[in-house]
């Protein structure tokens, strides 16, 4: 299933690109995620805890950067995650790019997600994935915006803990989470440090 999302970042594209590379900041915008292994420059292993209603899963998976184009600020990531309890898995390809939007940046995300196993068959989740992904991306975007605004008002301060209330990771789709984790981790590797 394919779907599109957009995200607004209140920074010009070059800065937005760098911010998204700042894994410390990004990680605080995504509660419940955990990077467990850096396999190589393009490949990350991790775990993410997600929930849709009474169904809570810890998805274990891997994200691999397939393509990155710093000049045009676009990239493609392949991510797979599976439930260790055998309730299913997800396979996804995410393409995203940054483009200028006024004084800020628009992040355009195109996702292609395949669910397999129990969650695909019985979860009725497939119809909700897109809706939940949009929710997640919006939540991530708000958290990121808040952090950016906070560091603007106190430019000398080091990145802090997420100022937003610790909202539980509710209604976050397994796919979208795995996707975002993979995106930010590959950004980290591209950080010009």
């Amino acid at each position, binding site marked *: 299933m394919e779907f599109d999302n957009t995200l607004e970042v209140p920074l010009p594209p070059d800065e937005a690109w760098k911010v998204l590379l700042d894994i410390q900041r990004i990680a605080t915008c995504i509660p419940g995620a955990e990077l467990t292994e850096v396999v190589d420059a393009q490949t990350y292993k991790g775990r993410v805890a997600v929930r849709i*209603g009474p169904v*809570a899963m810890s998805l274990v998976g891997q994200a691999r950067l397939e393509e990155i184009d710093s000049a045009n600020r676009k990239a493609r990531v392949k991510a797979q995650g599976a439930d260790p309890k055998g309730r299913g898995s997800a396979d996804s390809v995410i393409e995203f790019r940054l483009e200028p939007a006024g004084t800020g940046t628009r992040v355009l995300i195109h996702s292609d997600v395949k669910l397999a196993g129990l969650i695909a068959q019985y979860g009725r989740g497939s119809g909700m994935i897109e809706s939940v992904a949009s929710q997640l991306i919006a939540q991530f975007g708000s958290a990121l915006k808040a952090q950016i605004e906070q560091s603007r008002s106190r430019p000398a301060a080091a990145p802090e803990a997420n100022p937003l209330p610790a909202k539980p990771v509710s209604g976050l789709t397994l796919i979208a989470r795995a996707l975002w984790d993979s995106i930010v981790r590959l950004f980290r590797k591209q950080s010009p440090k």
Partner: protein
Amino acid sequence: MKPAVFEYHAPKTVEAAVAVLAEVAPREGRVLAGGQSLVPAMALRLALPAHLVDINGVKGLDRLVVEAGELAIGACVRHAAFHRPAAEGPLGALLAHVVRHIAHYPIRTRGTFCGSLAHADPASEWCLVAATLGARMMARSVRGTRAIAAADYFQGPMTTALAPDELLAEVRLPILSPDSRFGFCEFSRRAGDFAIAMALSTFRIRHGVMTGARIGVGGVEGSPRRIGAAESMLEGQRPSGEVFRAAADRVAGSVEPLEDARYSAGYRRDLARVLTRRALEIAAA
């Protein structure tokens, strides 16, 4: 197809129930009311609660009474309780009409109104009713009771504003004025199936024109909601096919439909249009 092990709690009072819930919610504890949504998920082992707090034995949760201009529906009130009008006038008739669309009779003998609201499936009929009529959700916890307005309550598929340790103890629906009209239309492939889309409309007719219109759509997006832009198109207008078609088009243009393997977004959008128009026509008839 057998549920996994869990610890079972059967409190007898609301105070005891929320106390247990406060303890077990952080450790995958959930409320068990009708169980018609939760237990299937447990049977399939999609849901693996470590604790269940069975509220069926809690005193006072089966209240179904009109008070202060609202119909108060307690957490243990079954869907079947609405087969006969639970309130006089249009509200009771509306609920009795909608309830027949919920699953099947043997599920309605156990499933609860509040349970549907707490579960917040996009295809839930009661959720559409609550969103359209502007229900108040009474969330109870060890911290006390708070009222959550419908506009703030639904946050996405299976996602509500309830904290994990909050029990949805009661839902309060505003009583409709005696001259209110309603129209409800749902589409699914077979009787008893989850709704692919549904629409609910209420309005009054004063001096020949519509007023106080509410139009809600459910099953189309992650949560049910009112489409204000379409509602304002009805205000002050005489009921007519033209006005209804225009409002229905507005609804179709406003929604961002779910897409899945079986039903495309375009299909749901189309259903939203048709069902809205039909609901309006039914209300005006």
